[in-house]
């Protein structure tokens, strides 16, 4: 970061972000005890986690005010990350594969 940044203002932001992260954590745990259905819980949980992660990345890691070359590198990583995330889908969704349900696995004893 360059020298002219008003560090006192930054510190105030850090404490605000810290508060928001704590609230987010509480909210995630709270939502868990609400006992909602799995898809809703997944959506809420991952949404809050993404918001928290963005807060960390943007403010603690200064991504909100970063140089172009780092944005480019991260954009590239995101592209390949998406390809990587396609992987579990490819592993589990193979339309040719039949089910093997008839084969029961009976463990001995």
């Amino acid at each position, binding site marked *: *970061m360059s020298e002219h940044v008003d560090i006192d203002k930054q510190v105030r932001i850090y404490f605000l972000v810290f508060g928001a992260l704590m609230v987010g*954590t509480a909210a*995630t745990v709270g939502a868990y005890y609400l006992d909602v259905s*799995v898809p809703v819980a997944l959506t809420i949980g991952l949404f809050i*986690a993404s918001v928290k992660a963005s807060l*960390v990345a943007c403010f603690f890691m200064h991504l909100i005010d970063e140089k*172009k070359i780092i944005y480019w590198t991260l954009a590239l990583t995101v592209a390949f990350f998406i390809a*990587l995330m396609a*992987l579990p889908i490819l592993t589990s969704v193979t339309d040719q594969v039949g089910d093997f349900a008839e084969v029961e696995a009976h463990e001995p004893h």
Partner: protein
Amino acid sequence: MEIPYTVEAHPETGLNNGKIGIWLFLTSEVMLFGALFATFIMLRLGSDGNWAAMQAEAELNIPLATLNTAVLIASSLTMVMAWASLMRGQLGRFKLFGWLTVGCGGIFLVIKYFEYTAKFEHHHYPESSTFLAIYFAMTGLHALHVIGGMAWNAYFTGPGSKVFHTNRQWLTDRVEHSGLFWHFVDLVWIFLFPVFYLL
């Protein structure tokens, strides 16, 4: 011989070498944990609905993990405050926040240790189920990162901080870079916590 741009920023990119290096390292970390998350999703999708049962059987301790999340978030705050103190030129406060960060990492690991031993006491091992396998793989790798980050921070807070008097900018930059790593480790935990304990 001097390597250019170790401290001062490159006029074109506006960054020094270390900053680019640490971000490149973090991109590879993104792909590393990404592959593990992909594995997690695959195992969960392929579990034929047994996932919730495996998770319940593993008896993860949610209050402890919540506490651990709070500890890591607090350590992120102290980390960034350590850097801010250096920016302000306050060596004493930097050391205070630096050791607080390392200490938070230590608390996190101690809690993690209690969590792990509780699992082992109940004979929940990585081999017991795919849930426990990926749980131990990911949280274990994360814990290794915490240890690495602690060592890094401890060096700059302790012996490394002598440079403050000769090359303050260098120290500030290094602390910023180790902070980036530390925040990334925190960021990974922010996903690990709900994914394993709550969802």
